[in-house]
């Protein structure tokens, strides 16, 4: 092979530059094993160029088109006097490059399909393994050797190694090793540099061996960021856009992709409310809440809007981009809440690379509530009876027996959480991918499977997924490229027939003086509905199996118009199908009870069995099928004018249509449980139903970019959007967005500062976007049948008739909600990109929010009000991101910090007239509520008498503040609490460490400004208390308590009137991810025919710091499945 290369004239010429550097750069491009033939072929491509004093940049664009290559270069690489005259016909690319490189003193390297241009003024090409003869040093006293590796621990060939302050240096060899002679005296520092990597310095000191690991430099590669309907160079972006690489998300050992995003993207507020396998998705709010209506952002996967991201495999993800400001206007009508763009991986050029990864994890709740024990619980019940003037029910002796656990049959002390939970639930994720390709076709193919079990013993709850993805990119001819994205998955959710909220409700209620299981192992009794959690978490209740099949396909074709330079057309069509099959098979189950007195002849308690849940098996099957077709065409144009003016324009049209249908059937009276199919059920009371819906959207959109000398940047995006949601004459809305940028660092006056602050950009944007996420058909006067099973009326004893109701009063003027978004920001990088910084400030003013005028329209009108475009909300805030990356010899580290603030207030909406000022919601954040202020506990009757109180208040009750000081407690004493369960400040702090093959990372994430309402209804006779409610409670002997007397459900005024006693500050800081791994040395790998191997430990939510006790601070429900803490071991092998 080498021979063949040597024969090639071009390569020989290139050797002058650096044969190895180029060859190995090709081979190791992007960490892949590239095929040398591909570079050769690329350089052999023929081009026709005829120019007269043409700008070199235009020439390069032309070459890009003709040869289907991409040039990458820093702006200053091309000299100022950059005109060239060429007349070449059918000339190999290599020759053209040679001419250019000579004329302009630049150097080129082929990396994959990219040709990297760099100034040629760097080191002279050295001989392999040789050191340069020093001219400027008096003596060479000793030799230092070592190895340069990349992030994966692979040797990095072709790295320039310079002695700092000299022109002396060497280049690393094929496996990254080098040897260099250095002067014996003085502090010697080596500088390691390689294109595409962050340069690194190492002080030699006394060492004779200096190994370093280079980090990929995202910036220097002119990183492309995915934006709406295209990509943009990070350096010239003017909107507020943040992105994260799939690899980073892949560190989180979570089955649901949405759970890996918290804290990673400044401005994206992520809250996870439940950890239940299969329904553990996080809620996203870009820059917090902006509207009184639907706040969910638009999710675009591989260019197709309205897809879901939760069930994508993180190993398939190339990048995630969040459009936070007017840059989202290109998605117009659905973009007011921001846009999240997901891009999946493409095939990497070169020979096939096969990677297989397996993760084995164990998960458990982040926190388990501590409940009162049996003796305390019964004691508290007695206190309730005494407070009500009744006799206590349990004697001291009985309570003592419970305390001592005297007889396991008579005096149980059950901790229901312990009885129901196992130590950890297993979770597995396995995936394999093949990536590779050549000029005509590149491919990324992956398959994956994951399994997530629940924390219950004998769990009937689990989530299981199988998925595949085929991403192809190819070239039909010189001018035509195409892309195909095909993905499919099957999501299996298995649940018992009692919901998680039933289960967790019963766990919390679970009376400690009842048995989970009897000492002989039989099922214990229930509190009600047969809901004994140790039983209903298993498959004894039947099953609820949901199978969701999702197929997402898209094909696109790009055509370069050969007769108009810079013009291209792209067309794409996507077809998404979602099919849901749900089978709910409910069977009776059996619990045992004991009357506490009947014993058999042997003295064993006699248990009696009770049938629970259902009188017999019942089967319901639900089916839903939906289809979404997204078709768009784009026209792109790109032109360089007069050397300094660069113009890029795009216009497009997009049509989205969709429909869905659903259907269900139900039967009961199954003769036996042996067959769980509909046909086997009885005819009596069988039932079925179904429905359907459609959607349609038509959009025109475009973008113009202009930049002057890479310094002054301008972008205009627009969208003219039509949605089926609105009436004909209000259907279309126009949404513009403008942004400007100024790269201060490109100015002449900055050049002196460039060594310190190498890249500084200021930018600002303004735009309008729309929100059509409202109930459909509000402009129609519609009537509908009641949909619940009991929505019927019966005549003639048993004839069931439909009931028709007025669905809404039409609002014939309903139209778009408009988001006015302003943003200013800056991006800067310092000290050779080691330190990067960005800051944003935004002001979002949402108008025409669709809201009901309920507050001012008396209910005597009887109106079911439509939403009208009346609301106005202001949301403002800021985001900061700071990162530093460096190394100390072999030890590499990077830290990054991001934090964001947002605060919204209602500027206008419908407010009930006559409400006192301090109760008004206008001017306050959205979704706040009125609460009585709890200011203590009445110590005794004297205290009750001394302060205005609720009628019937007793000692031990919570004191409500007489806010308006009118001497009585009534609805006017409620105050508006301005916090909600959505944070106003979130942040993330990440540390990455590396030392030779070892690496570790820690990611902390926090959120503040939140409240959690800790009220839970079923305490007292209906269920147990938390331990903290029991400890330090008010009793006659503990009158100065800070906690109230025991209560019975919602009987007390401070239980059935919302008050601040039950509110908790739920700010938190948590160690969201932790990773520790080892790259097995390549020497060892090679022996095993592996090119790369990695073993690692990762963790999720390992530590949480919060004031919230007993519950996860993110979980707002008292009866939801808790969030998970995950410990994961993984191995990844690449062949």
């Amino acid at each position, binding site marked *: 092979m080498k021979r063949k290369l040597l024969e090639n004239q071009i390569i020989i010429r290139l050797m002058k530059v650096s044969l190895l550097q180029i060859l190995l750069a090709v081979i190791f491009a992007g960490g892949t094993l590239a095929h040398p033939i591909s570079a050769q072929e690329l350089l052999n491509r023929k081009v026709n160029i005829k120019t007269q004093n043409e700008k070199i940049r235009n020439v390069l664009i032309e070459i890009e088109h003709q040869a289907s290559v991409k040039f990458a270069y820093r702006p200053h690489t091309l000299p100022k006097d950059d005109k060239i005259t060429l007349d070449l016909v059918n000339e190999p690319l290599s020759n053209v490059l040679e001419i250019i490189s000579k004329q302009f003193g630049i150097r080129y390297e082929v990396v994959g399909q990219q040709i990297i241009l760099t100034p040629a003024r760097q080191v002279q090409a050295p001989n392999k393994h040789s050191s340069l003869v020093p001219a400027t040093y008096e003596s060479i006293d000793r030799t230092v050797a070592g190895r340069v590796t990349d992030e994966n621990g692979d040797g990095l060939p072709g790295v320039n190694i310079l002695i700092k302050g000299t022109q002396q240096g060497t280049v690393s060899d094929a496996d990254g090793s080098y040897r260099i002679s250095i002067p014996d005296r003085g502090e010697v520092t080596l500088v390691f540099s390689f294109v595409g990597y962050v340069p690194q310095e190492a002080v030699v000191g006394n060492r004779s061996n200096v190994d370093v690991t280079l980090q990929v430099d995202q910036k220097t590669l002119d990183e492309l960021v995915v934006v709406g309907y295209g990509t943009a160079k990070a350096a010239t972006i003017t909107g507020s856009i943040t992105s994260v690489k799939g690899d980073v998300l892949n560190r989180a050992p979570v089955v649901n992709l949405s759970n890996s995003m918290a804290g990673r993207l400044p401005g994206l507020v992520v809250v996870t409310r439940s950890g239940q396998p299969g329904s553990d998705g996080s809620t996203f709010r870009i820059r917090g809440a902006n509207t009184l209506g639907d706040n969910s952002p638009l999710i675009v996967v591989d260019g197709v809007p309205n897809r879901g991201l939760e069930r994508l495999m993180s190993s398939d993800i190339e990048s995630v981009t969040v459009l936070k400001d007017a840059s989202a206007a290109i998605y117009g009508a659905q973009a007011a809440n921001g846009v999240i763009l997901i891009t999946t991986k493409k095939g990497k050029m070169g020979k096939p690379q096969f990677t297989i990864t397996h993760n084995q994890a164990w998960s458990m709740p982040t926190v388990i509530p501590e409940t009162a024990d049996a003796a305390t619980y019964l004691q508290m019940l007695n206190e309730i009876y005494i407070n009500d003037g009744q006799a206590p029910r349990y004697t001291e002796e009985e309570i003592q027996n419970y305390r001592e656990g005297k007889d396991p049959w008579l005096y149980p002390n059950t901790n229901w959480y312990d009885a129901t939970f196992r130590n950890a639930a297993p979770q597995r994720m396995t995936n394999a991918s093949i990536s590779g390709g050549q000029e005509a076709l590149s491919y990324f193919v992956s398959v994956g499977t994951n399994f997530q079990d629940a924390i219950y013993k004998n769990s009937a709850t689990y989530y299981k997924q199988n998925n595949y993805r085929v991403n192809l990119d190819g070239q039909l001819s010189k001018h035509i490229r195409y892309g195909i994205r095909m993905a499919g998955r099957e999501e299996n959710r298995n649940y018992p027939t009692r919901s998680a909220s039933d289960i967790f409700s019963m766990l919390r209620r679970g009376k400690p003086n009842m048995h989970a299981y009897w000492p002989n192992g039989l099922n214990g009794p229930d509190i009600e509905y047969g809901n004994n959690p140790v039983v209903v978490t298993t498959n004894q209740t039947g099953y609820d199996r949901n199978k969701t099949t999702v197929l997402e396909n898209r094909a696109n074709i790009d055509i370069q118009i050969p007769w108009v330079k810079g013009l291209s057309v792209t067309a794409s069509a996507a077809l998404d199908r979602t099919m849901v099959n749900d089978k709910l098979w409910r069977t009776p189950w059996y619990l045992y009870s004991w009357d506490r007195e009947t014993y058999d002849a042997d003295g064993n308690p006699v248990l009696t069995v009770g049938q629970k849940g259902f009188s017999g098996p019942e089967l319901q099957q639900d089916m839903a099928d939906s289809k979404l077709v997204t078709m768009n065409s784009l026209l792109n144009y790109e032109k360089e004018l007069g050397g300094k003016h660069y113009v890029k324009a795009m216009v497009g049209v997009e049509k989205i249509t969709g429909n869905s249908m659903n259907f269900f059937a139900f039967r009961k009276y199954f003769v036996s449980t042996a067959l769980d199919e509909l046909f086997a059920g009885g005819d009596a009371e069988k039932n079925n139903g179904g429905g359907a819906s459609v959607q*349609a959207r038509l959009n025109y959109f475009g973008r113009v970019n202009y930049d002057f000398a890479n310094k002054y940047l301008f972008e205009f995006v627009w969208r003219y959007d039509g949605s089926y949601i609105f009436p004909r004459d209000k259907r279309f809305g126009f949404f513009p967005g403008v942004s400007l940028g100024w790269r201060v660092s490109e100015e002449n006056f900055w050049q002196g500062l460039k060594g310190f602050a190498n890249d500084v950009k200021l930018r600002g944007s303004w735009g309008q976007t729309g929100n059509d996420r409202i109930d459909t058909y509000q402009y129609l006067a519609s*009537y509908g049948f009641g949909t619940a*099973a009991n929505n019927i009326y019966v005549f003639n*004893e048993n004839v069931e*008739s439909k009931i028709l109701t007025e669905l809404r009063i039409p609002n014939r003027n309903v139209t778009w909600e408009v988001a006015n978004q302003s943003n200013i920001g800056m991006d800067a990088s310092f000290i050779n990109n080691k330190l990067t910084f960005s800051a944003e400030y935004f002001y979002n003013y949402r108008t025409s929010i669709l809201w009901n005028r309920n507050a001012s329209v*008396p209910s*005597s009108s009887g109106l079911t009000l439509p939403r009208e475009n009346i609301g106005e909300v202001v949301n403002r805030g800021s985001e900061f991101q700071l990162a530093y990356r460096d190394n100390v010899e072999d030890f590499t580290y990077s830290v990054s910090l991001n934090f964001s603030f947002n605060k919204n207030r209602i500027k206008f909406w419908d407010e009930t007239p006559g409400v006192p000022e301090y109760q008004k919601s206008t001017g306050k954040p959205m979704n706040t509520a009125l609460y009585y202020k709890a200011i203590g506990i009445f110590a005794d009757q004297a205290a009750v008498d001394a302060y205005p109180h609720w009628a019937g208040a007793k000692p031990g009750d919570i004191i409500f503040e007489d806010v308006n000081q009118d001497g009585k407690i009534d609805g006017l004493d409620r105050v508006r609490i301005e916090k909600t369960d959505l944070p106003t400040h979130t942040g993330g702090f990440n540390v990455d460490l590396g030392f030779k093959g070892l690496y570790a990372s820690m990611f902390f994430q926090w959120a503040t400004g939140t409240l959690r309402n800790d009220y839970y209804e079923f305490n007292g006779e209906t269920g147990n208390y938390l331990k903290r409610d029991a400890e330090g409670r008010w009793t006659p002997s503990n009158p100065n308590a800070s906690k109230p007397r025991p209560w019975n*459900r919602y*009987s007390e005024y401070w239980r059935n009137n919302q008050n601040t006693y039950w509110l908790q500050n739920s700010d938190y800081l948590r160690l969201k991810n932790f990773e520790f791994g080892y790259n097995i040395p390549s020497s060892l790998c090679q022996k095993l025919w592996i090119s790369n191997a990695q073993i690692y430990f990762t963790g999720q939510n390992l530590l949480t710091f919060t004031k919230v006790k007993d519950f996860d601070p993110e979980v707002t429900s008292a009866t939801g499945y808790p969030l998970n803490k995950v410990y994961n071991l993984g191995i990844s092998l690449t062949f």
Partner: protein
Amino acid sequence: MKRLYFKPIILGIALSFQACDQDFLETTPYTEFSETAVWSDPALAETFLNNIYFRLDEPLTDGRMKANIVDEAHYRGNGGSRDFNNGLMTQDNLLVWPSTLSRYRSWADIYKNIRYCNIFLSKVDEIPFSSGVVDGKTPKERMTGEAHFLRAYNYFNLVTVYGGVPIIDKVYELEDDFQIPRNTFAETVDFVVSELDKAADLLPVRHSGNNIGRATRGAALALKSRMLLYAASDLYNKNRYASFSNPELVSYTDNNQMQRWQAAKAAAKAVIDMGEYRLFRAEPSPSDSVAQNLVDLFLTKTTEEDIFIKYFTTPMGQNFGLYTSPNGYHGWGTNAPIGNLVDDFEMRDGTKFDWNNPAHAAEPYQNREPRFYSTILYNEAPWRVRPLDAQNLDPYNRVQTGSWEVWNASTNSVNIVYGVDTRNSTIEDWNGSYTGYYCRKYIDPNIDAQYIKQTVTWRFIRYAEILLNYAEACIELGEEEEARKYINMVRRRAGLPGLTESGEALKKRYRNERRIELAFEDHRFYDVRRWAIGPEAYQPVKIAKVVYKLNPDKTTAERPTVTHEVWESRAWNDKAYFLPIMRDEMNKNSLLIQNPGY
């Protein structure tokens, strides 16, 4: 060459979008009916009326009765009803009224129903009805009559708890001015009556086929009887609210009570004179179990006594059976009768039950009148077969609300064994009744309520009430002979001897008769108010203590000792004769005037 190849492709792409005009954006909802469709189809219009029937307040669906907030029953487990029973409702907190104990009965819900009636009446002329006559009326007449009846029923539900309310008989549009003052009590009653008069003219006397269950002429006349009886009652005629700035909102301000009794009498008589209704098993034969007759009255789907009823089928999800059954049947023990009510059931011979009578006190559940046995489940009352897990606790299928004192020879002490339907039961103890009683009326013993919803018919109006309405008006008018005749029709059916009293004694017997006959039928709550007997009715709750005592010889007594003990407080506040209009509604409609005391 290549150019030729490209051009069609690009052209094709461009055309593919040009071809799509915007008509595809013009979609229609697949699960909704347009306004035009509804009012051009009599069948759809009829289902719109069905919805108003569906939204009429009745207690069986949600399983909780107004009995719990008057001197009939106790609502286990809700402090809201306790507070209501102590007059603690405020304009910020109406306690159990709008939600727990009431279905579609909040101010807002009722006005929504009224809007639906108004919509129907405003559209009725557009509906292309057939001209055929069914049961003597055209569909248009019948449905118009139904709408008037339903509108009257909803205003009746407002006026009885709020007094005079804004009368809204038009369909509000978004742009309208919604500020509207309350009409006077007299105007509101007049409106209800005029609506019922219209309905009575338009509705058939009797429906056939699948119209059975819709309002009839008799239903309209019967509701008119109830309205006029209420309007003639003391609360609205005795000028209780002299100090209230707007007494006309909550009462009549003239002195024509006697005239109103006349009107009430005439209205009841109009129903009676229709000759359409009879008491169910009005003349029990000596071989009949009268108690069983009365049980059958409520468990039979349709009877000759029904004037206006609501049928149920399983999918309608009637919860009453589950909520009201004893916990030993996995029921929820809600709507538990209180001792105060139990004491008011007479003896079989028509004499008053008396704890001071040693024979009565020894066996308080023996020799009571038949309605006691058809209404109340008491200790040892026979009931349905126990569920599997309670069968060994009660092989006899008799309600156990008592406890047994059992001598434990090994420990030389008394063990107390609690009945399976007590709050110390081993089955769902917290669902047990506090009062020692469970309600039997309206529970279908043939259904295992823990799994299956019962389908007992709810009787909004039955003939017995009309007879009593008539008798009450007669008493107030001094026509005692006539009154006794009609009261005694009800008593005869209940297997009781006739009344012979007169004067105050007769009035007292009548009121007790109404209390017992119509127990758990959502009447008492209103009767206590219109008679203005709040202080008398809201007395501390008495509950039964049932103990099988330890005999001196250490055996346990065969027969229990039953006593009634005062247990939970109740108190009266005069403001509770009316409900408050909520502060929120007051804020939204500045013309409203709040009821006295709030």
